[in-house]
């Protein structure tokens, strides 16, 4: 985090004020927010992201790649320096800067050249679009300049890269103030994974629910909680009474496992 941004947040916290960023300095629209691609060794992929200047006047944007990791709360932490094993040297961007007229759009191209001797695995990187002109962040009466940015996350599976999943549990964790059945999932493979599946269960009061696994990404080597959120037609905020039993099939990639667990 930059010293300017940190200062703003510290000031806001001290003053008990909300942080808002004015749109005038940075008004980029970027699509898509994420790309999930597949490739092979020796193959060059060319892809396009569209960047639109949502401001009325011409704006300049700087673009560069970055490595990233996911924080415990799934916030994305970008790293400008090259991470060990980074595939960013495979990536070629169209240009470092773009200038867009008000409302103008660029189809911004980038390439991923997978080396001929690349092993199977997953290439992950971000493309950061940063406003050249600082925006104004306001904490009450205090205005401070910060530079806004948007990051597009790119995953490229190379060869037969796959996740390898181990499921641990059961546990009960708190999600958005509500206790929910939770599993811990270790991804020992070489590609990220998002869990899914159709699970049903019954709580201590005998109420039957569908359970929806959280679908946030689990990167290779990570262990993440997978929350099983209850779903009940006609009830947007169902309250579970533990213990809860959950059965069904947990799915990921093209694989699945049967689940029959008691959570208490």
């Amino acid at each position, binding site marked *: *985090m*930059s010293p*300017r941004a940190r200062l703003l947040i510290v000031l806001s916290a001290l003053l008990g004020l909300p942080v808002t960023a004015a*749109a005038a300095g940075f008004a*980029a*629209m970027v*699509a898509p*927010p994420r*790309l999930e691609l597949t490739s092979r060794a020796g193959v060059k992929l060319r*892809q*396009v992201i*569209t960047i*639109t*200047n*949502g*401001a*009325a006047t011409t704006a300049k944007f700087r673009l*560069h*790649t970055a490595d990233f990791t996911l924080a415990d709360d799934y*916030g*994305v932490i*970008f*790293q*400008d*320096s090259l991470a060990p094993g980074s595939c*960013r*040297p495979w990536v*070629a*961007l*169209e*240009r*470092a800067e773009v200038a867009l*007229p*008000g*409302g*103008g*759009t*660029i*189809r911004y*191209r*980038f*390439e991923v050249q997978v080396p001929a001797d690349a092993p199977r695995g997953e290439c992950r990187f971000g493309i*950061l679009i*940063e406003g050249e002109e600082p925006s104004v962040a306001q904490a009450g009466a205090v205005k401070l300049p*910060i*530079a806004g*940015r*948007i*990051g597009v*996350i790119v995953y490229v599976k190379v060869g037969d890269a796959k996740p390898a999943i181990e499921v641990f549990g059961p546990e009960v964790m708190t999600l958005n103030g509500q206790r929910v059945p939770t599993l811990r999932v270790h991804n020992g493979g070489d590609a990220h994974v998002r869990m*899914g*599946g*159709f699970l049903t269960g019954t709580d201590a009061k005998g109420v039957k629910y*569908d359970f*929806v696994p959280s679908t946030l990404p689990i990167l290779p080597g990570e262990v993440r909680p997978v929350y099983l959120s209850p*779903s009940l*037609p*006609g009830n947007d905020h169902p309250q579970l009474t533990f213990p809860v039993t959950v059965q069904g099939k947990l*799915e990921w990639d093209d694989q*699945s496992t049967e689940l029959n667990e008691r959570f208490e």
Partner: protein
Amino acid sequence: MATGPPESAAPAYQDHYIAEGTLSPDVSPGEYVTSTSGLSRAVRIDGVMSYIEQQGAGAPPATREDGFIMDGQWDTAAYGAWSANGGVRLDGSDHPGIAEYGTGSFSLHQRGMPFDDGWTADNALGDINTPLIDLARLQPRFILAPGPMEGFDTQWRGPSGLEIVAGGGEPGIFNGIKIPLFDPLGGSTGTLGAQWSPAAQWALGGELAAARDTPLYFQPALQGQTATASSERISSSTGYLTALWQDGPSRAQLNFIDGSLDSNGNSMGAWLDASHTSGAFTQSYGAFYIDPNLAWGNQLMTSNAEGGYYRVGYQSRRWLWDFDVDQVDTVSGSGSDVTFVSADTRYQLSRDTGIGGVANLRYGAGDDAWGLQGYLDQVNSLGTVRAELDYATNAQLEDYTATLQQTWKVLAGNRLATSASVDRINSNPNATLQQESTVVRLNLYGGGDLTARLSANAVVQWAETVQGEAQPSRSADVSLSYQLSRSWSVLADYYENRVGSWTQLIVTSPLTPPIENVIPSAGVRGAFLTVRYQEAHGGHFVPLGGVPGSGSGHLSGVVYLDANDNGRYDAGEAGAPNVIVILDGRYSVRTDSNGRFDFPAVAAGHHVLTVQTETLPLPWTLNNSGRTEVNVSTRESTEVDIGAQRIR
């Protein structure tokens, strides 16, 4: 996607660049917003040149549809949101198949004009539809269809759910392929109605409609056809009363209608619709009695029917099924009972694979028919695929169809869906319409940005007879748009519509508005060249539904006819053209020939899209006026597909 402050001022790693960074940038000239001061206002003017010809032996000479289309929208601080739409045809002989080809149309709308004590008013003038109270629009089975007219309407909404509507004018028909044209039919029509909520759970309403010395109006029966009118002139007077009770997941609506059509004497009707949702189950049921010869204004409504229906549906993450029984008899005759039974189910086998089937049976009135459908949906590395088998039979013919649909994964901002099918039709030797044929059909729906300046949209449906006598069928609407500068762009469009001399057999409820027997059409095709000028002010800092300085996003989508009822826009399914889509009850746009609509700058936050269902072609409808709730995020594009269902 992540947002936030940068980690450091300068990247520690030096990126590589394609062709050393010498690639020419693919940049659009920018949006047509020319200033950002003041309230939001925009204008669009299209100059259209065309060449249209009718195909086939004895076809009349080629014709033209040249002219202008004008659209304007502007917000006012005290008088609501205004919009003006118009079209004028400068040249051209009669349109093939249309006796009177309109020379122009114009409408002026004012929406959401505020008054004290919570009152707002919507007013309109010009070529519009007759107004209806909201309670009359909530009809799952019997539809009071407002007809097109040249006149005025006013709709007032106030406290306690009070709504007053009135309107009147000369009935007419919208026609024109690209240019919206209106052809007055003579005579007059008028309506006056009101509704009110005396208690939280109750709403009462009533409306009167009358038509004098004017032809009956018939909505287009098939996609690509124009509306028609009868040659004889009628007069009608009809009154409608309704009471709605709604308590959470339960609702019931009782309707009475009474009127006369020409010298047929007095006719009356009543129908009750009720529904209840409990958990994953929804039950709907009703009973009806409607005399023959009832019209709403100059439009015939479904009449001469008595009976009842029951429907139960279940929906969970994995299961979706419903079961429907209709029992219908004619009021005027005997021995004409018809029973319709329909069962529809879908099961999600896994995250990526689902299966389903539909069975329909219609029995009675000498028109026994039944049909079966089975399908498999799968998400694969290329997109989403559906394999479907259909069989249907009645006293006249048997119809076997195998279909493969694919919605393709494509680059961001683009869309592509294709389908291929083989249709085998066997006619009974005693059939009045011999259709012994094997037909191959290919459909494509796609579009997107080819470059930052050039975009394309295409809906193509092609059918060829590989065996038998059936005539081929063609339908195409392919358009290219190139942005010359911020305000100027050029659009080229190829249009073709030829209805084949065969039709797929669909087994429907007798309460479904009828689809006329297909008459082989010689077909129409044409090319259109449009030069477009657009200009807007205040668009970015006063987005639609926002306040100065609020963030905005882009909201666009398509209204389509969901023929297979899978909730997804597939190739072979048509977009619904000329349908009015309304944002937050204030800002309206009309869908283009592919059913697409576009709100370029919408305030970030929660919005409600609704569709004027009466502008949909029959037999299509949208539950709850297609009410779709969307959240628009600052600087993001939101795409909404609104699928119309076949009335069952």
